[in-house]
């Protein structure tokens, strides 16, 4: 007699086990803390939540955090592309060193980077001095925040792009050249579209990281309410005042917004990948 639900081992073994571990692990590490966040926020009524979130100071911090993160991720998109390109395409003495240097923002405690950047960009710092002569405040300004967020976001773009560029055979570029394309046309029409999915993934990660970044920014930003106060700082401030529900509401709003942005970027990525590898 045939058993209707007889378990047959699949061609690739271990699916039930690995899937079980995946769910448990993600649950413990990601979902339960997030659920805690939602639960804590649920202590507030809808109108209390709304008033907290649309407070002028909170809205200003949202604009700053998301805006500065977008600017920083965009800067990294361009310069990260160039860095990855150089590292993949050209052998040069010290390439290993430069390659290792890219990971430094990952490895450094963010507070250390923050203090270093502040010292560098403050009015009496090496770079801050010359900048102040042309009327730009390096540290304690929105400019400073963008610098810190660019610093911490760079490795994401470079590390996601490197394998994609390495995967792109150089004969594709040679083909474009033999068909009469100039260097710029080749990059614009052939190289960038081919690595677009990786570019977007790097952009999304750099952006996501920047939105949540706290350590390096608090030193360089100056933390003036309405002007240079980022959302993570505002959350910490609320927590220090024992306003846990207020802190989680802000966090939840920011999270929701970032999540939607990441979904959109992911959507574009899926769309462009589907075109290349149908």
């Amino acid at each position: 007699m045939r058993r209707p639900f007889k378990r047959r081992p699949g061609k690739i073994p271990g699916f039930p086990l690995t899937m079980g571990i995946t769910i448990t692990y993600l649950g413990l590490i990601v979902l339960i803390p997030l659920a805690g966040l939602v639960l804590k926020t649920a202590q507030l009524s809808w109108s209390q939540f709304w008033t907290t979130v649309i407070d002028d100071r909170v809205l200003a911090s949202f604009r700053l955090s998301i805006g500065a993160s977008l600017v920083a991720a965009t800067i990294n998109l361009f310069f990260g592309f160039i860095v990855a390109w150089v590292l993949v395409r050209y052998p040069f003495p010290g390439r290993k060193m430069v390659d290792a240097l890219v990971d430094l923002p990952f490895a450094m405690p963010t507070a250390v980077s923050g203090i270093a950047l502040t010292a560098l960009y403050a009015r009496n710092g090496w770079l801050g001095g010359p900048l102040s002569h042309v009327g730009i405040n390096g540290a304690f300004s929105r400019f400073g925040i963008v610098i810190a967020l660019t610093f911490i976001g760079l490795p994401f773009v470079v590390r996601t792009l490197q394998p994609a560029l390495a995967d792109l055979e150089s004969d594709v570029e040679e083909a474009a050249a033999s068909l009469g394309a100039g260097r710029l046309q080749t990059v614009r029409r052939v190289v960038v579209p081919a690595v677009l999915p990786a570019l977007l993934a790097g952009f999304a990660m750099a952006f996501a990281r920047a939105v949540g970044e706290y350590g390096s920014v608090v030193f360089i930003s100056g933390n003036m309410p309405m002007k240079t106060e980022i959302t993570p700082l505002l959350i910490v401030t609320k927590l220090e005042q024992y306003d846990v529900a207020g802190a989680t509401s802000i966090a939840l709003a920011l999270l929701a917004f970032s999540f939607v942005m990441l979904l959109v970027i992911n959507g574009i990525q899926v769309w462009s990948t589907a075109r290349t590898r149908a």
Partner: protein
Amino acid sequence: MSIKVRNVSKSFGAFKALDDVSFDIPTGELVALLGPSGSGKTTLLRLIAGLEDLDPGAGSIRYYEEDVAGQPVRKRRVGFVFQHYALFRHMSVFENIAFGLRVLPRAKRPSRKRIRERVHDLLGLVQLEGMAGRYPSQLSGGQRQRVALARALAVEPRVLLLDEPFGALDAKVRTELRHWIRKLHDDLHITSVFVTHDQEEALEVADRVVLMNQGRIEQIGSPADVYHSPQTEFVMNFLGQVNTFRGHAHGRDVEFADISVAASDGVIRHGDVRVFVRPHELEVLPQKNGKPGFPATVLRVNAAGAVARLDLQLPDGGLITAELPQDRFARLSAGTGEKVFVTPHRVHVF
């Protein structure tokens, strides 16, 4: 468009990939660069295309009389077809073929309508009508290579250069595409050069074969020419299977395996030589028939195919291979272990 290659050398570090190479490609011919890997054939093709730069001061490459040595590849108007197709995978077949037209400076760029017509003409030429909207990943290897060819032809190149164009394809598609390329060339008459390591492919497709070895040209000639009158030992060995003997030359004759016969080229030689006989140039008989021949024992018979192949052992232990037409083999009716007599009709000596 004729191509003149003069005294061309190219080194990669200490490795000399090409050493003082000169030859001409006449207008409208289909030429094969044939050689083992590392012989410099691909380097030569890439130099002709401009994908590689000549060593400073080492020779010249001319299209007609125009020296193109300093010209970058994108100015040379060459069609280049890569072994692994090098299609733009994010573009449809249509966009791939249109690429060369779209990147033209605005003044020279055809109208959208003209581009569409041209691409559809080319799709017809490479027999891929109806595939315009597909992406490269949805095509088979043979189809991809035909798209690559259409893309190269779209810019009306002065010369067509193909780097191992059939190398990545399976055997059947390879033969089909080979015939098809030959036919296409007969229709278009565009000066073409293709690189291959497969002697059968070169002999079948090309008007002229350039045999290369260790960065030098060994011989240039028509397929029949290089096959029947190899000028060097390398060419003899490279173009098909061959039996090798040690021999001794006395004037026009050469002595080997206890027989003495005339060398095919009629050159007078003296002293120790190497003697080469192709498997199909050996006659295998049940017994001596008066012609100079030597005894051998049949080790193995493979009768599958157009000819029957016999592995034979000489009295001194040496092994040779002979190929007989099927009807001759039937008359011989020799099985494994039987004694036979072997008579060479044609003997090459170097």
